[in-house]
């Protein structure tokens, strides 16, 4: 069993463990969006192996996941996730462990057709270099014995696709492919039975092989993008804590009836539209309105799904079932807009529509001309079939998937996820870019007043470090040079603030209401209370990104739901001349539609629920990974972390990919320009056909690697 024989490397232990891992199916899967190297693999695996409940853990770097085999299959992975996040690795539970049986099936077919192709080609070379009579027939029969079962099995995806297309009275790319493979096999069997000179078994197999290579790349790319997109969507909590006779119960969001009392702690998103039962709270409406200031609401107020509770815990009574919540309504509006956008017809589709009728027409005409000129039915049929086989869209089938795979992969390594098949092609032709402000270009932060003494700063840092609340975390960069004071008895009151003792005095950082002050956030140092004002500051790198995009000739707009003054101030900082403030979600959508009506291709970058409609309406769209599920669903590309610097790079790669796709079409066309006359004039030998097809497919694939 031990294949690796290097004595220093392999001991019995890991091999046995590896074997056990292969046999037992993993019980849990965690998504690790940020892992990228060997050190990450090591750290994560070692951390998980140190947990006693875990039998084994193995990281898959390509899929950014770790499969875990736990001793108790029903174990709760939350402590492991916390353990990993303490080490600095963000982790989320995957909804289900996913198999990739479709991929495996394609790779298996690819391998078998490759094996069969090479063996049959060897025999063909022998025939071509002079085998005659009985030897040639023998070789043809052996080729048939390999090729017929192999094509039957390997080309099955093409046959079944073509069959369902014909049943629906449509023509797709698979119809000419299936026809060419089928005819190549049939005519070869006929020739072999009649001791003919030409058998096209090798051509049938190399067609199958190269087309399967294209399909495999395509499937691999899509499954990667889809699974990762589904994982991001899973970040949104799907469970709600309800209060039944004072007892907290966790329930699925779809099971919550109207009038249920729900319990929300600080930082949670309101899952369903509800009436506030608690006396008062503070909520963050930025997801819906783009407004960056939080607002105070009192008992009986309406809470809208999607808002974030800043100050909690609170209880509320739901007013709608989950299917009618504001969040869901927005998602539905977005899907209507998406349907209206219409399917962008990809370059490959357009090429295919042009291709099939031209080729079928050509081979029919070619066969008929030969029949009328020579009266030889056999020769005429052979010419028609040779034309069909030689022009079979091998290179065309690889041209787009190969480029898309390379480009998607490079973008994924940058840390962005391409969700839509046609996103790259659309991104490549973008002319105008509109940014949302709140959450996309800016984030909210507390300011450390300039007049604070060193001691005050030290205490403030100690308090801020004790909480994971985004606002207290936002204080830390400004206090980077300060050593935290040894504040004793630190205690976090959820939704209110942090309390501690320093030199016999009370120190607190928290909401104004908690301390008894007017301001929304305050820092209490002994008897003095300092209000902390809030600012919106630019996400690091935002300025550079905007300048880069402007330098590259994109027309950049700022579109915000926020007030005119703050939007304009931010735009001045960023050097954006075109500012559109106080925009409702519908106004943003109209804005996008208006720009596109002028023939511009607009890229929308936004994260909030209020951007969802605009994201869907736009020619192409990007959402940061922190965005709401609805926005991520609407976007073509999701930036896994909020780093905007990836946008210019992604656009550049998309342009490069489009160039390569067009080049590949040109290559495929020039190959056909040479091959079709040869086939029509009756000079094409089967070996020539197989070699020419292989050569063009390889050229196209190599050209795809030039995407960078």
């Amino acid at each position: 069993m031990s294949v690796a024989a290097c004595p220093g490397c392999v001991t019995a232990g890991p091999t046995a463990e590896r074997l056990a891992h292969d046999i037992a199916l993993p019980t849990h899967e965690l998504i690790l969006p940020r892992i990228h190297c060997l050190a990450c693999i090591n750290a994560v695996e070692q951390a998980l192996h140190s947990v006693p409940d875990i039998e084994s853990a193995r990281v898959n770097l390509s899929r950014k996941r770790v499969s875990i085999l736990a001793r108790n299959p029903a174990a709760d992975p939350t402590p492991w996730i916390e353990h990993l996040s303490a080490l600095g690795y963000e982790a989320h539970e995957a909804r289900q462990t996913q198999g990739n049986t479709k991929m495996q099936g394609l790779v298996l077919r690819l391998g078998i057709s490759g094996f069969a192709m090479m063996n049959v080609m060897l025999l063909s070379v022998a025939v071509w270099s002079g085998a005659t009579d009985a030897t040639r027939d023998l070789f043809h029969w052996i080729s048939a014995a390999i090729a017929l079962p192999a094509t039957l099995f390997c080309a099955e995806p093409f046959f079944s696709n073509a069959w369902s297309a014909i049943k629906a009275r449509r023509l797709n790319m698979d119809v000419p492919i299936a026809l060419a493979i089928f005819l190549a096999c049939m005519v070869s069997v006929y020739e072999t039975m009649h001791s003919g000179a030409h058998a096209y078994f090798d051509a049938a197999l190399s067609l199958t092989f190269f087309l399967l290579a294209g399909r495999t790349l395509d499937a691999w790319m899509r499954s990667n993008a889809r699974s990762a997109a589904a994982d991001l969507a899973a970040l949104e909590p799907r469970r709600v804590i309800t209060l039944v006779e004072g007892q907290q119960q966790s329930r699925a969001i779809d099971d919550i009836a109207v009038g249920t009392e729900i319990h929300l702690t600080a930082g949670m998103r309101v899952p369903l539209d509800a009436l506030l039962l608690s006396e008062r709270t503070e909520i963050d409406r930025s997801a819906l309105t783009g407004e960056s200031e939080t607002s105070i609401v009192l008992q009986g107020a309406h809470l809208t799904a999607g808002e974030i509770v800043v100050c909690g815990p609170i209880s509320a009574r739901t007013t709608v079932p989950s299917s009618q919540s504001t969040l869901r309504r927005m998602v539905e509006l977005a899907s209507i807009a998406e349907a209206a956008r219409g399917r962008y017809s990809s370059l490959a589709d357009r090429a295919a529509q042009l291709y099939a009728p031209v080729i079928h027409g050509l081979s029919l005409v070619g066969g008929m001309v030969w029949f009328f000129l020579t009266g030889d039915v056999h020769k005429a049929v052979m010419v028609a079939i040779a034309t069909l086989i030689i022009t079979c869209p091998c290179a065309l089938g690889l041209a787009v998937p190969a480029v898309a795979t390379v480009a998607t992969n490079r973008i994924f390594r940058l840390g962005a996820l391409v969700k839509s098949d046609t996103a790259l092609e659309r991104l490549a032709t973008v002319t105008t870019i509109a940014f949302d402000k709140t959450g996309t270009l800016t984030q909210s932060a507390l300011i450390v007043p300039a007049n604070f003494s060193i001691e005050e700063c030290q205490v403030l840092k100690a308090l801020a470090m004790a909480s994971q609340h985004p606002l207290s975390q936002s204080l830390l960069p400004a206090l980077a040079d300060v050593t935290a004071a040894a504040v004793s008895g630190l205690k976090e009151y959820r939704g209110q603030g942090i309390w501690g003792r320093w030199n016999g005095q009370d120190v607190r950082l928290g909401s104004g209401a908690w301390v008894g002050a007017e301001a929304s956030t305050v820092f209490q140092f002994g008897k003095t209370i300092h209000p902390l004002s809030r600012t919106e500051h630019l996400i690091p790198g935002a300025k550079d990104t905007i300048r880069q995009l402007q330098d590259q000739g994109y027309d950049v707009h700022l579109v915000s739901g926020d007030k005119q003054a703050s939007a304009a101030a931010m735009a001045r900082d960023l050097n954006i001349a075109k500012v559109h403030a106080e925009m409702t979600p519908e106004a943003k959508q109209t804005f996008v539609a208006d720009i596109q009506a002028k023939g511009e291709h607009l890229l929308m970058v936004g994260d909030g629920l209020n951007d969802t409609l605009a994201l869907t309406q736009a020619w192409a769209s990007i959402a940061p990974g922190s965005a709401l599920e609805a926005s991520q669903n609407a976007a073509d590309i999701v930036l896994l972390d909020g780093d905007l610097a990836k946008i210019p790079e992604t656009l550049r790669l998309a342009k490069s990919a489009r160039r390569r796709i067009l080049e590949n079409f040109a290559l495929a066309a020039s190959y056909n320009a040479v091959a079709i006359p040869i086939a029509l004039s009756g000079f094409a030998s089967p070996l020539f056909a197989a070699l020419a097809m292989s050569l063009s497919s390889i050229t196209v694939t190599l050209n795809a690697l030039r995407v960078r």
Partner: protein
Amino acid sequence: MNVLVVLVPISLFLGLGALGAFVWTLKAGQYDDLEGDAARALFRDDDKSN
């Protein structure tokens, strides 16, 4: 031409052997994480003897 009777079966047999090996690697999941395996080649297996 009698040599063909020996050589052709041998070549087919070797080819089938390679195909069998390929199917085995596929079933053993050796293509599941190409990037990770490339990275793992850089570290010694006996480091994680747990």
